């Protein structure tokens, strides 16, 4: 089967900054669970945003589901099919209740309110937060917010998941739950993660982002291990 996502020769520089990406390449095929590691500020979040068209690279190509994507309109379909869980749940969650936050994506996709509420109940169950519909998102614990972020994205029934440090700020119990949820999902995914324990359990392949490029991790550095 063909590739789901493909980035080739990606270059990206924020204004008045040194380059972040300088020729990064990656591919994601069906069933892949790719981890991306790299030091803080290496450009991991930038890379994910390029893949869904929230940032446009200065050079390089993004191919999603077999079609090359350039303009904002090209990415509308990509964003429907690629679920992106942001690094900080506070950047993602903005509704008064969990139900409304989770229903936001389905409503954007054109579901009716009744359908959306059904979806909400279903995905909250998947992430182990059944019954959280009426809870106030802003008052949840950090771990609960992260699981809700994942539910928000799962509610759009994506073909691919992009997860930016999904176990950051989680205690061990919630980390274990997140691992179990991710392992139970059939979707291909790219996971940014600093945590080698997590990577060893969840992913099938690891790339390290450093100096603006992606490469197989250097096995001599203790912190880059955990490629499973």
């Amino acid at each position, binding site marked *: 089967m063909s590739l789901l996502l493909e980035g080739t020769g990606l270059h990206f520089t924020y204004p008045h900054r040194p380059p972040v990406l300088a020729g990064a390449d990656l591919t994601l095929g069906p069933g892949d669970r790719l981890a991306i590691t790299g030091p803080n500020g290496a450009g991991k979040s930038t890379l994910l945003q390029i893949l869904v068209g*929230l940032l446009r690279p200065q050079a390089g190509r993004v191919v999603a589901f077999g079609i090359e994507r350039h303009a904002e309109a090209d990415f509308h379909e990509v964003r429907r099919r690629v679920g992106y869980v*942001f690094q900080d749940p506070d950047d993602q969650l903005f509704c008064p209740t969990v139900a409304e936050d989770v229903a*936001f994506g389905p409503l954007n996709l054109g579901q009716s309110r009744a359908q959306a509420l059904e979806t909400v109940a279903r995905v909250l169950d998947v992430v182990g937060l059944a019954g959280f519909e009426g809870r106030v998102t802003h008052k949840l614990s950090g771990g609960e917010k992260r699981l809700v972020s994942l539910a928000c994205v799962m509610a759009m029934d994506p073909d691919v998941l992009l997860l930016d440090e999904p176990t950051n700020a989680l205690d061990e119990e919630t980390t274990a739950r997140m691992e179990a949820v991710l392992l139970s999902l059939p979707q291909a995914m790219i996971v940014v993660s600093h945590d080698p324990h997590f990577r060893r359990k969840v992913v099938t392949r690891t790339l390290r982002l450093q100096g603006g490029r992606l490469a197989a991790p250097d096995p001599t550095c203790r912190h880059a291990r955990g490629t499973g």
Partner: protein
Amino acid sequence: MSHILGRSAPTSPGDSARTDGLIQALDPRTRILAAAGFALVAVALTSLWLMLIALVMAGLAMGAARLPAGPTLRRMAMMDGFIVVLLVMLPFTVPGPAAFTVLGWPASWAGLEQAAAIALKANAVALALLSLVGSMDPTTLGHALARLRVPERLVHLLLFTVRYIAVIEAEYHRLRRAMRARGFRPRTNGHTLRSLGYLIGMLLVRALERSERILQAMKCRGFTGRLPLLDTLRFSARDGVFAAGLIPVLAGLLILDFAHVPAA
């Protein structure tokens, strides 16, 4: 990170010589007072010719501040876009001898003149303000207002607002980006309005929580209910020369205008 207030003002002391114009060599208080004085005079003018001179003066100020002409004039055009409806209506609502008719509606000379006067004055004042005051850092504006005896609390409110606009704006853009990633496209419907309302409400909630942390940080550094201001503002000979040049010109405009009134 974008800074929505102020164009790329020099970020280190060394830069300033390169980008600053003559206006920036003046004390900020001089610039504020000059803009206010200019505005009062321009608004008081009745002769279209003198208004045109005022607009030319504002254009000179733009040059002296080395403002980039393109973006500055685009801002002016945006402002003009807001008032264009008002201006277009005036010839038809001001009574007087008809200059021409549109679909049977007579347009008066007097109305045309009044529309032209508003357009000239509005553009002259806005351009002078952008050039004299808009070309300084918002922070400097706060310091200068404090020295001009604007109430302390108002100055601190302004400075806190300026300080946190960029922080809040970044928070806003991150949330909007996350909404876009979940397929949100603003349309004219309830879902859009509700979502934007939630977004604004959430920004306010987080703003209050941030202000609680700020107050804690202030307490940790011995806050005793006083917010000191330190500035390096100083009048120089240049300010004297500028005032000595501007005041007669403004007075001259008023005198010429007064002499001109009977003819109008």
